[in-house]
């Protein structure tokens, strides 16, 4: 018994040693955490600094002009903003109903075995590198668009300005579809989690009042509304920033066209395509400003989405 009591004096040493190692550990992890913040701030600073040339040359005109002529040293980003916005919105329009349907099926209706299999497949879909989507877009989707979908749309909806022009295969619509496939996993997964966070007692309340399955699900959707909106915005943010796959199928022409069949350009694509060969300081600086713009937009979109999701899951009681 005497063994377990340390001799007088050593007690203090042991405690202080422990404290010391804890102190190192705590501070080290804190430094790591700070590093993340530091990197973000650093990126912002660098982009801001190196876009100075372009900012002083064009001012706010940079955002409102769609002239992008490296040869004539005229740079305006409007066409890229338009291409990014339209392709992302198209993606959202296609992806949202699909994702929501899958999320409802997964959280409310699917038997366990299908649920786990499908969830796994969706997570795999999210893990596919975007270059693969790009390949698939060029070799499978674009020919299909050219020979089937675009002529079909033209035949039946050709009176709308969105579906006029030559079916080229590549263009805004193709980019929108590729993006939709890429953001379906994220919207589905988060919507499913948000729906799962709705307590079972809520569903029971609806059923006990004589709700049909659909009515009970509607009740759950009502509760999950802001979380699902958050998932949507997060998917939108992903679409806005996506580079590789879009670059491969959007056509890469800095034009603003109402037709979804026409080639376009996105902010991310122009940086990817032109950065390596931009020799002029002003050209480089303009590309960096496009990057800054893209960063700002995705940052705002993501913050907004996280806030919405947080507002739902914070109060979740679990099932």
């Amino acid at each position: 018994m005497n063994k377990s009591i340390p001799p007088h004096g050593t007690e203090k040493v042991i405690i202080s040693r422990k404290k010391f190692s804890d102190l190192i550990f705590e501070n080290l992890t804190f430094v790591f955490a700070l590093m993340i913040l530091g990197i973000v701030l650093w990126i912002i600073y660098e982009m801001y600094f190196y876009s100075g040339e372009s900012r002083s040359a064009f001012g706010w005109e940079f955002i409102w002009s769609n002239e992008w002529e490296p040869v004539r040293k005229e740079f305006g980003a409007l066409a890229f903003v338009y291409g990014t916005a339209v392709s992302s919105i198209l993606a959202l329009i296609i992806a949202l109903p699909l994702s929501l349907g899958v999320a409802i099926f997964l959280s409310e209706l699917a038997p366990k075995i299908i649920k786990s299999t499908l969830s796994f497949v969706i997570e795999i879909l999210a893990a596919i590198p975007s270059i693969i989507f790009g390949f698939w877009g060029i070799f499978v989707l674009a020919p299909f668009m050219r020979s089937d979908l675009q002529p079909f749309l033209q035949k039946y909806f050709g009176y709308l300005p969105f579906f006029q022009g030559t079916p080229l295969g590549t263009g805004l619509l193709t980019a929108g579809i590729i993006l939709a496939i890429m953001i379906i996993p994220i919207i589905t997964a988060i919507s499913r989690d948000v729906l799962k966070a709705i307590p079972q007692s809520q569903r029971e309340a609806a059923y006990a009042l004589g709700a049909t399955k659909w009515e009970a699900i509607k009740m759950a959707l009502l509760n999950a509304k802001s979380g699902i909106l958050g998932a949507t915005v997060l998917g939108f943010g992903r679409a806005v920033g996506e580079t590789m796959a879009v670059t491969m199928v959007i056509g890469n022409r800095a034009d603003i066209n109402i037709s979804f069949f026409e080639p376009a350009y996105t902010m991310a694509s122009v940086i990817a395509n032109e950065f390596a060969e931009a020799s002029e300081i002003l050209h480089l600086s303009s590309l960096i400003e496009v990057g800054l713009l893209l960063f700002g937009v995705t940052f705002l979109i993501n913050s907004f989405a996280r806030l919405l999701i947080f507002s739902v899951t914070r109060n979740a009681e679990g099932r």
Partner: protein
Amino acid sequence: MKVILDTELKFEEHQKLKGKDSSKFAITTTDLSVHFGLKAAIKKINLKIRRNTVTSIIGPSGCGKSTLLRSLNLMHELTPRTKVTGTIKILDKDITEYDVINLRNKVGMVFQKPNPFPKMSIYENVISGYKLSGKNPSESFDDIVERCLIHSALWDEVKDRLNKPAISLSGGQQQRLCIARTIAINPEIILMDEPTSALDPLSTMKIEKLIHDFKNDYTIIIVTHNMQQAARVSDFTAFMFIGDLVEFDKTKKLFTVPTVKLTEEYITGKFG
């Protein structure tokens, strides 16, 4: 077991006055068993519950009280791998003959934990079930809300803030709101699954008073952990133990001269 009601005559007169059919039993179960997977939750329950009475179901945790209750409005169907054998008659019609939606309109349910719809106002909560039923309103929504809130003794507390969210209410008020929501669909039977176990004594008292007042209009079955509550509110008491219905009798008799030894041991606190 034969139970003779003291007020038998009165009861039948009452029914005649209200123009209901003369059947005395709201619920009859015959050899009712419920299995979850391979495990039997309740075994061969035979129960006859009279109209316009309050029946409590008591027993230790896990004895199948809630399972029995949930089988009466088919809520057990929400749990996968549930198997039910035996028959249940609700208002003289076999439960399988009902459309499940209609059944739940006739057999309302109040849960252990108050579960108002959090994104809806007090007003919307009361009317939510009624709207789901798709009945042609014979009175305006406003009237229904007012009537049900008055019946559930909540009107005076909330009449000035009907459009406030339901979750702004206290737990006891939320539970009375859930009761209002249930009676808005005009059920004949109300099932209550430990309705006061999450509430403070004062709120419990209010709800017990409600149960007492409701007897004229509804048949009430209440699952409770609290034997004093069973003694206070119910006309009949069923004592269950590990899936078996041990004893079912008039509350007064069951608590004073139980016929089964197990019942006596439970109500005197020897176990449970």
